[in-house]
């Protein structure tokens, strides 16, 4: 038992070191800045009594709340970048809101197998336990992927977003 524990501890150390190393690499290169924020939509009334929808930080979130994730990117490299892909797992405890993913100049694909394969929403299928197949619904989605059409030029920036409902 203690031998196993030691082995695991070692493995975790190696893993942590590796993570720090990778992060360090990413940050020092700083070729792309990638930020992600989470917000809620609230409806307020303006002075004329009209409903105004505004986004606020996701502070009070309870089961049933719909939250919006916005991921912004800025390319700081000196040469153009290609094969630009943003991927985002659907966060744990949440369900993707059908039709909510957007991103200018991107092709949006979804996965139901934790990112192993991606398809458009209409092509995605789920295999039931009895072997039969059905069209996947938002609840089945595990990952979203935005593939940027074309190349990123130095200084280019943009954003993609999607919504989920907290279970």
């Amino acid at each position, binding site marked *: 038992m203690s031998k196993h524990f030691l082995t695991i501890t070692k493995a975790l150390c190696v893993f942590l070191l590796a993570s720090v190393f990778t992060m360090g690499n990413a940050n020092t290169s700083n070729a792309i800045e990638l930020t992600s924020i*989470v917000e809620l939509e609230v409806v307020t009334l303006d002075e004329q009594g009209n409903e105004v929808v505004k986004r606020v930080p996701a502070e009070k979130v309870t089961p049933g709340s719909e939250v919006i994730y916005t991921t912004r990117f800025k390319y700081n490299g000196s040469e153009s970048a290609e094969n630009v892909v*943003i*991927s985002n797992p659907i966060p744990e405890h949440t369900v993707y809101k059908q039709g909510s993913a957007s991103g200018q100049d991107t092709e949006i694909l979804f996965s139901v197998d934790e990112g192993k394969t991606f398809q458009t929403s209409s092509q995605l299928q789920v295999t039931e336990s009895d072997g039969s197949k059905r069209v996947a619904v938002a609840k089945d989605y595990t990952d979203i992927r935005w593939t940027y059409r074309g190349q990123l030029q130095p200084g280019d920036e943009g954003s993609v977003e999607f919504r989920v409902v907290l279970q």
Partner: protein
Amino acid sequence: MSTLNLKHILKVLIGVSLILGFSTNAFAVGTPSGTQVDNQATITFSVGGVAQVPVTSDDPNQGGTNDATSFIVDTKIDVTVAWQDASNVQVAAGQDGVTPVPNPPAVLTFLVTNEGNAAVQDFQLSTENFGGDDFDPTAISIFVDSNANGSYEPGVDTATFIDELSSTVGTNSITVFVVGSIAAIQTNGQTSDIALIATAHDGGAAGLGALTAEDTGNDTALGAPQVAFADAAGTAVIDIVTDGEHSDTGTYVVVTTSVTVNKTSQVTDDGVGGTAPTAKAIPGATVTYTISIENTGTQVATGIAATDPIDVTNLTFVGNVTFDAGCGGATSSSFTSPNFTFNVPTIAAGATCNVTFEVTIN
């Protein structure tokens, strides 16, 4: 590190994640209060045909350099109260659960369900009488179905508030009884509407916790969970949307039983050879009286007692009292001159009870 070790570690890690997933997500109504939900995007790209190191996203609202974008799930207070009786609960005038026996309690049955995401929640129970109905019970008690058998048992179901109701599906509902005393002056068809109100109190310890308060101040995404009310408006006048309580209304309807009584007589034996129907009403002849009591109501009639004074100047009480099948329970009769008295414990709705006795003509 050997491959064997790696495999073993993977197995252990998968085992741990399965257990975590099971305990936090499988059965709760909603994501439990206090759960941290993380998100991180990754961007991959190539420059000059060479794949670059992928970059993971940072939450600019936090101090680090590769922070996941996270929030803490706040505490949702949500409760539903639902009246369970299929139709208005029929009660008798004077039904107070005490006397005379039998006098069962007048019970409205409700189901209270914790739809929130705190692990446990207490609920205070109260009732509201409405204007606009015909009457109010003279007294109302509220009891929790402590042994969860769905029926009210005096002396067993004694708790007056809900303690530590789970938010886990399958164990997040409990039955509550409203027990009313119906005054004897109420009349057939009168109704009384009673709303049961369940109000959230803090759970986590035995006994009724403090009234749960909604947090209205500024929250932060990663701060301690704050309390948000998410209940719908119920039927009670005081119960509005998102006020930490919910209510539903149950209705009593008074059903009084009315009985009609008929008395007939027939000379059954004139002592000189004649029998019914030709026997003559001569001195010494036997006369059989039949008292018919019909329950014309829709409720069982209970505790029927009747007295029939006999004309003892002209008649002599003989007896041979009979009760037919329409007379329910342990019937009894007695004669104390001049009164013939009998008791019938129950007569079913729509049934007729026939009682006969004999006299002779002096």
